[in-house]
């Protein structure tokens, strides 16, 4: 049921009882539905959205880069085999096939700029049929996964109003 997924996507820690009340479904059904989604791989896993910029001392401990990759497609597989090969690297956090001037857009996280550069030059660029790459380092994260990382807007409402 779509509403359960939407609720969990917003807050994965919502108790099943609360989801049941919100949706008007029996608790058992909510629990069973979620278990099915987990088994079917619809729900991949549960994780926290971390604003690393806000963690003291963490500023320089990792860097993120968006890397656009041009790939020569191959008969029968298109871009899929190369995309999968890139996806298997741990430092690669996401891989999308995109329209536009490049074919794949990847998110890569490394210890520092050097580590990411090395990854691109040693691993990514040397894969067969990878024709070129363009690397964009992230300087500051303003919003990710629907969360704006600025200070939340304060509640300006008066405590008691008609």
């Amino acid at each position, binding site marked *: 049921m779509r509403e359960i997924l939407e*609720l969990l996507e917003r807050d994965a820690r919502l108790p099943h009882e*609360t989801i049941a*009340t*919100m*949706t*008007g479904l029996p608790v058992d059904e909510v629990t069973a539905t979620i278990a099915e989604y987990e088994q079917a791989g619809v729900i991949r896993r549960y994780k926290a959205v971390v604003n690393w910029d806000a963690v003291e001392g963490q500023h320089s401990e990792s860097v993120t880069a968006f890397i656009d990759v041009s790939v020569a497609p191959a008969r029968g597989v298109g871009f899929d085999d190369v995309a999968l090969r890139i996806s298997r690297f741990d430092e690669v956090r996401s891989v999308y096939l995109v329209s536009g001037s490049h074919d794949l857009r990847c998110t890569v996280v490394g210890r520092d700029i050097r580590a990411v550069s090395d990854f691109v030059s040693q691993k990514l660029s040397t894969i067969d049929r990878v024709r070129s790459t363009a690397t964009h380092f992230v300087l500051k994260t303003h919003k990710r996964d629907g969360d704006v990382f600025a200070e939340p*807007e304060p*509640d300006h*409402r*008066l*405590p*008691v*109003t*008609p």
Partner: protein
Amino acid sequence: MKPLNEVIAACPPSGIRRFFDIAAELDDVISLGVGEPDFVTPWRIREAGIYALEHGYTTYTSNAGLPRLRELVCADLANRYDAHYAWDSECLITTGVSEGLDLTLRVLLNPGDEVIVPEPCYVAYEPCVTFAGGAAVRVPTRWEDGFAIDAATVAAAITPRTKAILIGSPANPTGAVQPRPALEALVRLAEQHDLYLISDEIYDRLTYTGTHTCLGALPGARERTVVLGGFSKAHAMTGWRVGWICAPRPVAELCVRVHQYTMLCAPHVSQLAAVEAMTSAEDDVTEMVADYDRRRRVFVKGLREIGLDCPEPGGAFYAFPSIRSSGLDSETFAERLLRQEGVAVVPGSVFGPSGEGHIRCSYATALPLLEEALGRIDRFLRRE
């Protein structure tokens, strides 16, 4: 000094004010006393307001309001509720429903005319009737009936001076949605006794059980019904102060006449933001309404679990549980709850005598805070 206006001086201040003062001096208060959304206005609407300021839309508009906005309001009423008002002669944009109500009453009433007001009801209804020179005649509704308005009770209150019936549905403070048959019965009464109907429909979109009935769409109602609405609740735009009146032409014309001398026009920037709200914020409204509904279910269930009888609130964002089991009157209950547990609610008695024995709790508050508030109320009930 010579005495001030005696009608206004005789009108007591809102009972809500006292709780505001107490809450303001306490720390760690969870407020369920707020009559407005906890959502900030959706960004696309705010951005349209900023754009309007940047591009110098800082002037007056026509008295009745931007034609585009009136067209949108009337088209929406027609599409959504099959209620038909001509945008250019039967609709005007006001600074919120509050002004709309004030204009309507001033236009409808002659000195001494009576307005029947089913209660518990929004705190401004009676004072606005009084300020317009009329007399409010309270008619009770009972929580055992889901606060449905009983036509026979209303009929018993009709006198030769009765001019209008003023209702709000979905209702602040009860969350009650008037069933269609109750509204149809009111229309029949109005026809029999030649009365006007004033329908405050500011919470129309926040209807969770059943569907909203626009009073102006009911057979026989249109020529005698003034529908009031706005953007404050569903679009989370309280502070923008923009609402509307849809009324039969003679009423609308006189409303514009008062409005042109007293208000001139609703704020231009707010009207442009409202145009954006009408044209592109439907998904935002749908999402907010779904969110209120989820919190409503959790909160009402929670109230019942801690032993408070709570009639099912079908609309708005208020629960109106009975606190009779505590043995306290609603004023005492609310004050003690606030001082002892730091939970602000509004005593039902401020909304009329039939509100006694209840408290108004707004669930337009983040879910963790609602759950914390329920825990505190539970602790309070066990002690009392």
